[in-house]
């Protein structure tokens, strides 16, 4: 049979990609090495956190599945950074790992145009610069008009546990060796990264009395479309810490750590170092937080967050024992480090198409990123753009000022990464505008245009938008007499609008209720929106001005026939890059990794009318 799209890999990227292409009307085949591991959470059983929660909401607003899926399978959801400001308030869920997989697999199985099948892809069929399908290890040729690679950490995967190392995918799954070779043979530039995971332990042997309980809030959800009246039965997480003894164990066994013995060559992420790295880099620090996170409702397995390690199993066991609450620990799976191949992401373009092979797209960890959320977002985008490619439509691209998705794309595609890439709020220049609470306001229209937001959802969105606008107008126009203010502990010489009051530091929408009897009943997400828009108006305006400047720069045209040698003062690398890539605008030049200094030189040159432009 011939398919429109074949998706290689059914992890977090692959699942989103397949759902997107199928929902956009394309016959989609999704292949996985193991059907039981669809949307497998190989590491932390958790979704969200700063930067990532925003991304999950964006995927939701564009019509992706991840937010719905975590709402269906969460053990608990917490709001992080509640007091640190609206830009960084972030949801984080603890997932029931098994349920997460089952739910995602079910979503795929129920999607009429998706076929889910277990197979090992050995190579791509490429003809005259076009992808024509894939070949499986049984020799079967599967034809497709587009192929999306979402292979995760499986490409030439190599697991390290102490002195032992062997070819493997994550958590004992098969590695994809032939496909990795095939990609190299096709001439793609490949880099080797490393990541790791901590050990898992048996919950019945944890003494929780020695740990601190962390609760979630059963009324919190990721998806804009989840029924808000739903209430979750919460499962707590637990906090403990390492001790001096743990540290000593690492130091005594450093010669057996593959990270330090030279056995591992791949580059690991700085934001998620192994415990041995933490000990070596922060020798003065006695204790490190350890998070005991349940992996599901129907298992007693616990994830030991904070103890990512590839030390030998016996050392891991000793280390666990040294942690308060884990004295009687039963190790269920050891931690390990995994090295894998990924494509150098600067080879890709903004649509996640792989240049050089028409119809080929890639998404997720194969693009040098890390994290389920990052993978899901790329999967969605690759799916959308594969569909648009087949329909002969312009690809969807999203810039840094619109979404974290745009920040990630820009970082990966234009700047590249020298470690597994993770989103963080600090990567976003316009963070205050890219909030998790307004992801729908930023992106639903685009999702609708793409065709992934159905009528019902769209209507709900429009209604919410209208409520926000109405309430905002009401707060701006409703005036409160000065003499009423002491009732809420405020004072003023003149009458003030509710909006003016709300801008004061200690005044909340809630507090204003006492002076505002005419207030309509509103859903909490509408109130939240109105409150943020009014309270932080000054800062929002500041960021909007920055965005306007960014867009102006984006739009500043560079003449196509510009003679780069005439632009004095450009760096050698900058000049080379610019003359090779021929960016059409200053913004594009910025994306292409041109340094600010070069950009300034170029800007000045254009400003002076160096090329008689307009």
């Amino acid at each position, binding site marked *: 049979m011939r398919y429109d799209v074949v998706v290689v890999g059914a992890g977090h990227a692959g699942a989103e990609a397949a759902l997107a292409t199928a929902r956009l009307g394309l016959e989609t085949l999704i292949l996985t090495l193991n059907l039981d591991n669809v949307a497998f959470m190989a590491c932390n059983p958790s979704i969200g956190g700063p930067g990532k929660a925003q991304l999950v909401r964006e995927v939701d607003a564009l019509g992706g599945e991840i937010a719905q899926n975590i709402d269906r399978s969460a053990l608990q959801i917490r709001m992080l950074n509640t007091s640190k400001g609206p830009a960084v308030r972030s949801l984080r869920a603890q997932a029931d790992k098994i349920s997460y997989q089952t739910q995602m697999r079910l979503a795929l199985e129920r999607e009429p145009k998706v076929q889910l099948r277990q197979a090992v892809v050995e190579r791509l069929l490429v003809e005259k610069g076009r992808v024509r399908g894939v070949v499986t290890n049984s020799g079967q040729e599967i034809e497709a008009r587009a192929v999306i690679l979402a292979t995760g950490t499986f490409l030439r995967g190599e697991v390290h546990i102490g002195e032992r190392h062997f070819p493997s995918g994550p958590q004992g799954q098969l590695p994809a060796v032939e496909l990795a070779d095939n990609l190299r043979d096709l001439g793609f530039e490949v*880099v080797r990264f490393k990541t790791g995971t901590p050990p898992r332990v048996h919950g019945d042997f944890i003494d929780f009395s020695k740990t601190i309980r962390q609760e979630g809030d059963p009324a919190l959800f990721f998806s804009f479309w989840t029924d808000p009246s739903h209430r979750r039965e919460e499962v707590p997480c637990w906090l403990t810490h390492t001790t001096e003894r743990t540290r000593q164990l690492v130091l005594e066994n450093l010669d057996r750590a593959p990270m330090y013995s030279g056995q591992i060559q791949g580059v690991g992420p700085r934001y998620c170092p192994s415990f041995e790295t933490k000990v070596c880099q922060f020798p003065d620090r006695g204790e490190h*937080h350890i998070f005991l996170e349940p992996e599901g409702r129907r298992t007693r397995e616990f994830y030991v967050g904070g103890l990512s390690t590839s030390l030998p199993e016996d050392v891991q066991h000793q280390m666990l024992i040294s942690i308060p609450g884990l004295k009687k620990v039963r190790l269920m799976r050891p931690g390990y480090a995994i090295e894998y191949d990924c494509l150098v992401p600067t080879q890709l373009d903004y649509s996640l198409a792989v240049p050089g092979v028409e119809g080929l797209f890639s998404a997720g960890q194969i693009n040098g990123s890390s994290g389920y959320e990052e993978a899901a977002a790329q999967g969605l985008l690759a799916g959308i753009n594969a569909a648009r490619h087949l329909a002969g439509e312009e690809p969807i691209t999203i810039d840094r000022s619109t979404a974290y998705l745009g920040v990630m794309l820009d970082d990966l595609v234009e700047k590249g990464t020298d470690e597994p890439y993770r989103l963080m709020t*600090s990567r976003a220049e316009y963070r205050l505008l890219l909030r998790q609470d307004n992801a729908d306001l930023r992106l639903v229209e685009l999702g609708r245009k793409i065709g992934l937001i159905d009528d019902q959802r769209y209507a709900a969105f429009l209604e919410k938008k209208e409520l926000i606008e109405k309430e905002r107008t009401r707060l701006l126009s409703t005036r409160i007499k000065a003499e009423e203010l002491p009732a809420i502990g405020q004072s003023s010489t003149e009458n003030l609008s509710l909006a003016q009051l709300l801008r004061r530091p200690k005044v909340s929408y809630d507090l204003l209720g006492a002076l505002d009897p005419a207030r309509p009943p509103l859903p909490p997400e509408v109130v939240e929106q109105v409150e943020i828009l009014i309270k*932080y108006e000054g800062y929002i305006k500041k960021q909007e001005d920055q965005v306007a400047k960014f867009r102006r720069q984006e739009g500043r045209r560079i003449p196509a026939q510009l003679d780069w040698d005439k632009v004095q*003062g450009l760096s050698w690398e900058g000049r080379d890059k610019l003359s090779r890539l021929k960016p059409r605008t200053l913004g594009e030049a910025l994306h292409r990794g041109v340094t600010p200094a070069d950009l300034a030189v170029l800007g000045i040159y254009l400003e002076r009318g160096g090329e008689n432009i307009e």
Partner: protein
Amino acid sequence: MRVLFLGTRICLFIAGFHFFPEKVKKMIDTIVAISTGAPGGIGIVRLSGKDAWSIGQRLLSWQGKPQARHMYFSKILSQDGKPIDECLFVLMRGPNSFTGEDILELHCHGGTVVLTKVLDRCLEAGATLASPGEFTQRAFLNGRLDLTQAEAINDLIHAKTQRAASVAVEQLEGSLSRKIKDLRERLLDLLAQIEGRLDFPDEIQDELPPELWTELSGIQAEIGELIRSGHSGQILREGLPVSIAGKPNVGKSSLLNALLGTERAIVTACPGTTRDVIQETANFHGIPVLLADTAGIRQAHDPAEQLGVELAQRTAQEAALVLLVLDGSQPLADEDHTLLASFPPEKLLLVVNKCDLPTAISAQELGELSPSPAYFVSAQSGQGLEELIAAIAQRAMLGDGTNQALLVNARQREALYGAQSALQQAYEAQELPWDLVAIDLRTAVEKLGEITGENLVEGLLERIFSNFCLGK
């Protein structure tokens, strides 16, 4: 990490080669120039490029393999082996040289004829003539200079006096860029304190250290300091604009000539001779001074003269200092009083000219005119000029008067102002959520980064990861 980095570099390089052979060729050329200015005892011919030494071998009598940075004595030979000059030469190997390429310097006998011969010989042996600023350009292109340093070299080339040049040299060594880098790094440390807490709430649970705010206002003050010193830097680079004003025929043009020691302006006894603004650069105690002689300011009848008068008034308004010239041999006129009133007193320097003639103005009259002392000079005899010159120089350096002034150009100053105001706003936001404080702090870091050419995010992440132990 290495693999990726290397990979991209190679890819870039090859792509550059493939698509732009002519540009690659250009960089491959070995350039040559006489790099010393006015004729002196020694003249240096400098070659830069990968063939610098092989060209040198073709024209030097010295045989062997020279050690880098050592001086050798040799003859420079013409193509047919006849000596052109004797020289000391030194070879500097790239990338440890100014341009980042191999550099061969031939220290020859000064004198235009000899140097031109040596230069020609180099060209004959395969070098190409450097275009103006090309050594600097190569240094910049080869990553040997950052933008600030490159600008400093540009300032150096255009520096108008020795003192300005010495400041440019100081900046070239990176004193400005060091200072700004240092401030930026300290700010990044503060920002990392906040950003780390925003992005890693599990790992960093404590409050912001209160010293953060003291450090923040400290940095803000230092930026203010830089801006202030930047003003005198600007004077050093662009010159102090000084306007010579006065009613017609008080001897303004003669004064200009006397101050310059040349005959630039037309001097006649006929009032209203100077109709254009004449501007000259003078060197007063190492300070470049832009002296503008203006048409005598009075009610003019001739339209051309009227134009000159208007121009004079405007020039005087724009000047940092106005030398108001009085004719000491004549009693004070109404016009003198009117003129005096039309300039702000802090800009004025009263100059009583023609003091070689009998004085018609009393000390008391002068005291009533202006509280600051008047300078008695004679443009004719040169009397009192030294004191006047010293006074002008002192005005230029008012406030610091040291050699430490950092050259801050307009672009840099603008960025410094931006950083300063962003820090002020961050400081005022202490009670607000951290993500809002971060907005202004980031702006400040970015503004400083515009000067040093550094990108915010990578430096910031580096800070977060090295300051905090992170990772679940």
